[in-house]
């Protein structure tokens, strides 16, 4: 979260709406620990990361929906070997993210 603060302040000062995704839990081998965080603004700008780059693209899509709807949600990403183009973690673990608007 610390590495996001300057971007969050800058975005908030410009009146952007923001969603935050935080890793809350991991199963098996995960690249980042609980607490790893990523923020997305309503123009699709990104700060921080929640994995080794594997799922960030999908998180942006989810985050933009969260900004649009104001809903909060849990989203999980895991290893998928049956769909060649599925979004997943190549390390074989699963990460569970909590996404919410920055309205608190």
């Amino acid at each position, binding site marked *: *979260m610390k590495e996001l603060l300057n971007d969050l302040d800058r975005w908030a000062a410009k009146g952007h709406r923001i969603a935050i995704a935080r890793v*809350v839990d991991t199963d098996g081998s995960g690249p980042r620990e609980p*607490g790893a965080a990523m923020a997305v603004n309503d123009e699709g700008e990104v700060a921080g990361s929640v994995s080794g780059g594997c799922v960030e693209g999908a998180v942006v899509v989810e985050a933009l929906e969260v900004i649009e709807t104001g809903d909060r949600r849990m989203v999980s990403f895991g290893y998928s070997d049956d769909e060649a183009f599925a979004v997943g973690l190549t390390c074989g673990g699963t990460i569970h993210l909590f996404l919410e608007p920055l309205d*608190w």
Partner: protein
Amino acid sequence: MTERPIFTALAEAIRAEEPVALATVVEGPHAGAKLLLRPGVAGEGGTQGHDALGTLGNADLDRVVTRDALGELAAGRSGVRHYGEKGEAREEAVNVFIESFAPPPQMLIFGAVDFTGALTRVARILGYRVTVCDAREVFATKQRFPMAHDVVVSWPNTLLDAVGPSLGPRDAVCILTHDNKFDVPAVISSLATDVGYIGVMGSRKTHDNRTARLIEAGVDEAGLARLQSPIGLDIGARTPEETAVSIVAEIIALHTGRDAPQLKDGAGPIHGVRA
């Protein structure tokens, strides 16, 4: 930004490097509800008190999560915990993500030598708050160690008497002077703290000589066992930068309990030869 009171308080605490825990309901009623906890305020009767902001939607749940979150924060852990709607144990109606923001761990480096600059840089990468201390004014300067948060001209025992009580299991003391005049008081004062890591630099000969001096000075078996001496993992490090990596790698291995080869357990040459 009064419309975001919890985030504002969280950001303030993180920037000030003060401990803070944020509890968020991630599944269950009131998803997104938050409770921010800042310990350190003196409570009634001298107990450890805390400041709380927000609610998870139920006073009993708040009370139980407050207790758990302060415990997780003290241990520097973050994770999801499960509760009943009123904070009951062994229920899973409410899942709460407790995120700990512990202040950065501290590293005290004694001795303003060549190795100190490299260790300061590597320690900064790992997130340590670094203090360099040496009794010799000409060597202990901010110009020589620009990456250190603090450069202190002092005897090791004087500095440790002042900051020792704040040291805990996540913190480290690295004694790089390899001069008994400084090493012995630095080791003795470090052993009087709860610091998690005490590494002491020196050749095997210096180590043997220093151990004898420490025993003479009254350091017992348990005290000697707490020392990582000679400091670092046995990876054949030669340069100050390589030595710095071997030191922080030793700290990591001791935290995770992995069985990495330590110089203290070996007998061979400390420096390696390039193939």
